[in-house]
Structures are given as structure tokens and as C-alpha cells.
């Protein structure tokens, strides 16, 4: 019995350890970073998939690292939401890895200035694999100080990836990102200190079991919330996001917008799950208000952009809002709210990564991404433009996509609770999304011919990986019962 328990739960550490080890190998294998990087990505995805299957079949579990029980040691917790996020990272991450392999191959084949792209690829793989391992560690962590360390790992590797392109704009953006993120981490750490002071434990479950509203706890939650909001760029703190995401290399933009943002939000959600019953409606409405402001403001900004990648980046600012307007709806309906928001996070991750990958291919082919000059790209890159349009459909929330299911669940919850202002915000936000997506798609799909590179430089793996992700975002609309059932699984 004991041995069996051990065997099933030690699967929890592999999604963390494998990518970290692969990062070391990719760093040392200077000649073959792509081969070792892709192998590492494949192994990590396999480990994540195995963990997911284990949890689906045998239920969740937890793993005490070093064999020390939680208040003293650190434990990993694999419950439904955590494992879903790990699987989301695996699917999106694998597609992005395949894309990145093709991307660097194309860039190196195109030639250009010196060995720049070779050097970029050499550092891309270790940084990306470290980021992947850190994200998995963050999703599975059950210890609040360990969360701080994984947050720092995520932030530093994202900043390294952002600055990788070497453009001045991307370096300035990386600088602002790092400063914002440092501020967030320190605020988080001070919150952790307050929690440890009051509860004498670093284990989140232990703390949440004993949580009572007192000045230090309220202060700790405020500090942690603000720190995490900075990390995931919720409305008043979104200033760093668009330049950082839009000026990075194509696979990096997809990683940042699809995955990294979800890390900060996931921790926010985990903390508030325990804190929500203690606070009044006012605080929750403030959170939802910020989310609503993000939806409207981000969509408006996206509409105003002239560059395709900036448009997609501001669309991320808007979509983050949807992750926060759920909080007033969480209290009712026994877990439906949580299921809706996780469903939204997963489908957004696939759709947004596909959008950024497709936009990156278009950028590479055309040599620019000015939306008004992109007419007729579909004649050169039919698969990529198709993927862009499909991912756009999921983002807008049209049936039968994953985005539709999530928004439908949101709306039905809001209607059942008579939160008409939330309904209004969501409807207006969806309309704005449709407008800016259609604006981009109408140019990309326009039948006019454009003058540009006649030779196709985008590799097949780049086109197909973007399409695969977009198809997953659509497919999520058909297999809704499977992930939704997982929320009942506890660690």
C-alpha cells in the first residue's frame, strides 16, 4: 500500500525536474541546442501527460520532498486545477517548441547579420526550458516561500527571453518588465512574511485552514495580491506588458502571452480561494471592476494599434480581465465559477499562443507587421492565415470554440446572480474583440495581392504548429466535459 502510494505520487516531480535538467543539457550542448532542446521539450510533455493521466485515473496526490511533512518540509500538490495547468503548459509548450525549432532554422537559413540567430538559438533553449520547469514548479507548489522562488525563476527567465531579440525596443521593454516584476516579487515576499508571522507555517493548505480575518492577514493578502497583479499585468499595472510581448521573438511572444501570465494569475486564484469567504462583497467587486476596466481598455487599445503583434499583445491585456471578473461569481454554484475561469485560461492560452505564432510567421514572411499593408498574405501563407482566423474565432468566443464554452458559462453564472453589469461588460468586451480581430483578419484574408517576398521563408513546422494550437482551441469546445470533471479532484 505504502509503496504503491509512493510510486503514483513521485510522478509529481518529473514535470519540474525534467525540463530543468534538459535546460542544463541544452546549455552545455553548444553545438546542438535544437536537438537537445526539442528532446527535452518532448520528454517534459510526456511527463506532464503521464501525470495528467495518473491524476485522471487514480485521483490527485501530494509528494513530500525529502520525505519531510509539510509544515517543516515542502510538498508538491497535484490536484485537478494544478494538473490541468501543467497539461495546458505541456500542450502549448510542445507546439511552441516545434515552432521555435522551425523558426530558428528559417532565420539561420535566411542569413543576415553575422551569427546573431545562432547565438539567439543557443540561449533560447536553456531559457525556455528553465521557464517551463519553473512554471510547472509554480503550478504544483504547495508552499508559499517556494512559490516566491519559482516566481523569481519564471520572471528572470521571461526577462532573458524578452531581451533575446537584441532590438533596443525589446531591451527597454525587458528592463521595465524586470523592474515591475521585482517590485511584484518583493511585495509578494513581504506578504509571505506577514503570513508566516501570523500562522507559523509556509504550507498554503495549513494556512488556509486556519485563516481568520485580522490586520496582518488582510495586509498580507493585499501585498500578495498587488504583487501578483503586477506579475500578470492586471489593468492599472499593465504598462509593461504590450511592449515586452510585442517586441520579443515570435516563439517568445507566444510563451509570454500564453503561459507566463497564467502563472501569476494561478497563484492569485489559489490564494483567493481560501480568502474569499472572509471578505465582504466590496473587495470582490473592486477586483471584478479592475477586470472589467482591463477588458474595455485593452480592447480599445488593441483596436487602435497599427502593428499586428501590438494588437495581439493588447488583446492579452483585455483577456486578463476575464480571468478577474470571475471573482464575484465564485461564491455561488459549487465550483462552476472555478471551472469556467480555468476553462477560459486554457482556451485563451492555446488561442493566444496560436495567434502570436501566426503573427510571427507573417512578420517573418513580410518583413514587417503593419496591419494596413498585410493584404493578401493568405496567398503566400494559407495555413498560417487559417490558423490566425481560427484562433481569432476562439478569442471572440464564437461557437463551437473553447472560448465560447467559457464565456457561455460566465454569462449563465452572471445572469443567475443578476450581475447585469458583468453581463454588459462581457458583451461589450466581446463585441470589441470581434471588431479588432475582424480588422486584422480582413486585411490578412483580403484577396488583393501584395508586393513582398515572393519566396516563402516560413518553414512547414512553423505553419503546422500554429494551426495545431488553433485547432486545439477549437477542439476544446467539443470535449468540455473532460476537463470540467477534473475540478472535483483534490490534492
Amino acid at each position, binding site marked *: 500500500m505504502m509503496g504503491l502510494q*509512493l510510486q503514483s505520487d*513521485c510522478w509529481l*516531480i518529473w514535470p519540474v*525536474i525534467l525540463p*530543468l*535538467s534538459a535546460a*542544463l543539457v541544452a*546549455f*552545455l550542448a553548444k553545438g546542438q541546442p535544437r536537438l537537445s532542446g526539442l528532446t527535452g521539450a518532448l520528454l517534459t510533455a510526456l511527463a506532464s501527460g503521464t501525470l495528467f493521466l495518473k491524476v485522471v485515473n487514480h485521483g490527485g496526490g501530494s*509528494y*513530500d*520532498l*525529502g*520525505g*519531510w511533512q509539510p*509544515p*517543516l*518540509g*515542502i510538498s508538491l500538490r497535484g490536484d485537478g486545477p494544478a494538473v490541468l495547468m501543467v497539461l495546458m503548459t505541456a500542450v502549448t509548450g510542445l507546439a511552441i517548441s516545434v515552432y521555435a525549432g522551425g523558426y530558428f532554422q528559417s532565420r539561420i537559413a535566411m542569413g543576415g547579420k*553575422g*551569427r*546573431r540567430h545562432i*547565438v*539567439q538559438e543557443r*540561449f533560447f533553449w*536553456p*531559457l525556455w526550458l*528553465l521557464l517551463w*520547469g*519553473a512554471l510547472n*514548479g509554480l503550478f504544483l507548489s504547495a508552499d508559499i*516561500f*517556494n512559490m516566491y*522562488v*519559482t516566481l*523569481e*525563476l519564471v520572471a*528572470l*527567465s521571461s*526577462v*532573458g527571453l524578452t*531581451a*533575446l531579440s*537584441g532590438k533596443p525596443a525589446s*531591451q527597454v521593454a525587458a528592463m521595465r518588465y524586470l523592474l515591475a516584476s521585482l517590485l511584484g516579487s518583493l511585495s509578494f515576499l*513581504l506578504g509571505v512574511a*506577514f503570513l*508566516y*508571522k*501570523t*500562522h*507559523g*507555517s509556509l504550507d498554503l493548505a495549513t494556512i488556509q485552514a486556519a485563516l481568520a480575518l*485580522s*490586520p*496582518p492577514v*488582510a*495586509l*498580507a493578502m*493585499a501585498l500578495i495580491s498587488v504583487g501578483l497583479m503586477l506579475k500578470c499585468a492586471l489593468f492599472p499595472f499593465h504598462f509593461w506588458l504590450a511592449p515586452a510581448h510585442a517586441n520579443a521573438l515570435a516563439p517568445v511572444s507566444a510563451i509570454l502571452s500564453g503561459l507566463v501570465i497564467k502563472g501569476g494569475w494561478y497563484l492569485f486564484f489559489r490564494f483567493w480561494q481560501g480568502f474569499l469567504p472572509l471578505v465582504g462583497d466590496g473587495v470582490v467587486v473592486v477586483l471584478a471592476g479592475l477586470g472589467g476596466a482591463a477588458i474595455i481598455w485593452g480592447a480599445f487599445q488593441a483596436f487602435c494599434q497599427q502593428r499586428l503583434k501590438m494588437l495581439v499583445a493588447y488583446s492579452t491585456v483585455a483577456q486578463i480581465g476575464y480571468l478577474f471578473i470571475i471573482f464575484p461569481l465564485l461564491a455561488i454554484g459549487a465550483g462552476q465559477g472555478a471551472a469556467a475561469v480555468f476553462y477560459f485560461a486554457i482556451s485563451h492560452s492555446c488561442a493566444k499562443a496560436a495567434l502570436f505564432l501566426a503573427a510571427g510567421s507573417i512578420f517573418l514572411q513580410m518583413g514587417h507587421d503593419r496591419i494596413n499593408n498585410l493584404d493578401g498574405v493568405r496567398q503566400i501563407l494559407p495555413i498560417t492565415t487559417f490558423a490566425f482566423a481560427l484562433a481569432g474565432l476562439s478569442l471572440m468566443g464564437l461557437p463551437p470554440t473553447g472560448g465560447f464554452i467559457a464565456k457561455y458559462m460566465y454569462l449563465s453564472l452572471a445572469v443567475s446572480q443578476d450581475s447585469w453589469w458583468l453581463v454588459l461588460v462581457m458583451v461589450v468586451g466581446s463585441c470589441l474583440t470581434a471588431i479588432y480581430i475582424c480588422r486584422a483578419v480582413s486585411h490578412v484574408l483580403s484577396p488583393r495581392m501584395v508586393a513582398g517576398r515572393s519566396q516563402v521563408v516560413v518553414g512547414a513546422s512553423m505553419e503546422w504548429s500554429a494551426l495545431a494550437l488553433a485547432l486545439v482551441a477549437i477542439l476544446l469546445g467539443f470535449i468540455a466535459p473532460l476537463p470540467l470533471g477534473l475540478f472535483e479532484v483534490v490534492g
Partner: protein
Amino acid sequence: MTGNESTGHRRGMGLVPLFNLVMLVALFAALAWGYLAPVSGSSGLAHRVDAALVESGVESRVTAVLLNYRAYDTLLECFVLFLGVVAVWSLRPFRYDRHDPSPGLILSSLVRLLVPLMVLVGGYLLWAGSNQAGGAFQAGAILGGAGVLLLLTSSPLLSALPRGLLSCGICLGPVFFLMMGLAAMVLGRDFMEYRGEAAALAIVALEVVTALSIGLCLAALFGGRRPEAGQEGAGKAVPSQDGGEGR
């Protein structure tokens, strides 16, 4: 040296809006209120740490927490250092990196004296870590300081090192941590489970290797760019090399 900027800076500080000031005062008041509010909290984990100390294989409580109870944090921390080096090396090479003129006789002879002393102090701290203040981090920091001194004086000792060795040394800490953790698993325990007699040995080995790796990483962070960057950048090689070759 910073005349222009300083006047702008002064002006900026003088115009700090009153609103910001009020907000900051309010923030401090809130923090102090949270800190001073009486809580019926527990006394932390001190008793648990002491109770398990016998099993942990070390006498120093902080070392026990760092390398046994919460070894996973320390593993990730080694990865943070490694990541810092990777991130710094991945940046575009610096264009105007001119090394200062040769360090001069006094400094270089001082360094020749100081570096062995620092290595000795590092070793002592490592040894002392088992029962009093000191340990892998402090020793690693001292070793890193020695590396910084060598870098500053462009010591020929550094240019004699083969290139691959530096990369391997930077990976050494995380690699060894992972291998020890996995070894425990192979022996039928949990990941990173060290107990009793074996724990004492494992932790000593971990401390020595971690200290070396931390020292190397810190020195590499100070170096500020990847060793071979000179070939792509301004035509200058490693900072440690241009002194030796040029003059």
C-alpha cells in the same frame, strides 16, 4: 561625472507629488498597523526544526533547514543563479567595453596575496558551517569574491582556464543537487531524502560542490558577458584576457 543627470534628478525629487507622499505614508502606517497588531499566532517552526535535527545529519539548524528540510528551495535557488548567468550571457555583447589600464603592481601583488587567503577563509566557513555560522553560501560568496578580484586584475590564471570548464562549473551546482536527489530515489527513498549518517556525508558533499558552483556563478555574473562574446562584439576578448595580451 554625473553633473547633468544630478540636476534633473534634484528637480524630480523636489516635485514628488504630494499625493505620492501621502500614499507612501499611508502604506507605512498600514504596514506598521499590521505588524504591531497583537496576534495569537504560533511560535513558528523552531520546535519542529529542533525535534528533527537528530535525523537531519547536521548540527547547525540553518544548514539543516537549507540543505535538508527545505533542500528543494535551495535546488531552485541554484537554478536561479545558473539562470542569472545564462540571462546575462544571452544579452547582446557590450559595445564600448574597454578594460581599464593594467592594474598596477600594488593591486596585483595584493591580489596574489588575498586570493589564497580568501580561498582559505572560504574553506574555513564551509567547515564551520556544520555547527556554527557559515556554510555553502557564505563560502561560495567568498570564493566568488576571490574570482572577482582575479577578474579585476586580469589575472593570467583565468585565461589559462579552458573555455568549456567555465560552463561546466556553472552547471555543476544544479547538476550535483539533482544527482544527489535522484540517487536518494534510486536507493528507494523520496527525492532528496537524506537521513542519519548518510545525510551527514551527503550534505557535506552538497555543501562543497554548491560553494564552488556559487562562487563561479557569482564571478561569472560579475564578468557581465559570455566569455566568447568578444569575437562578435567590439573585437575584445574576455576581460580577463585583454589585459594579459595587450600589455
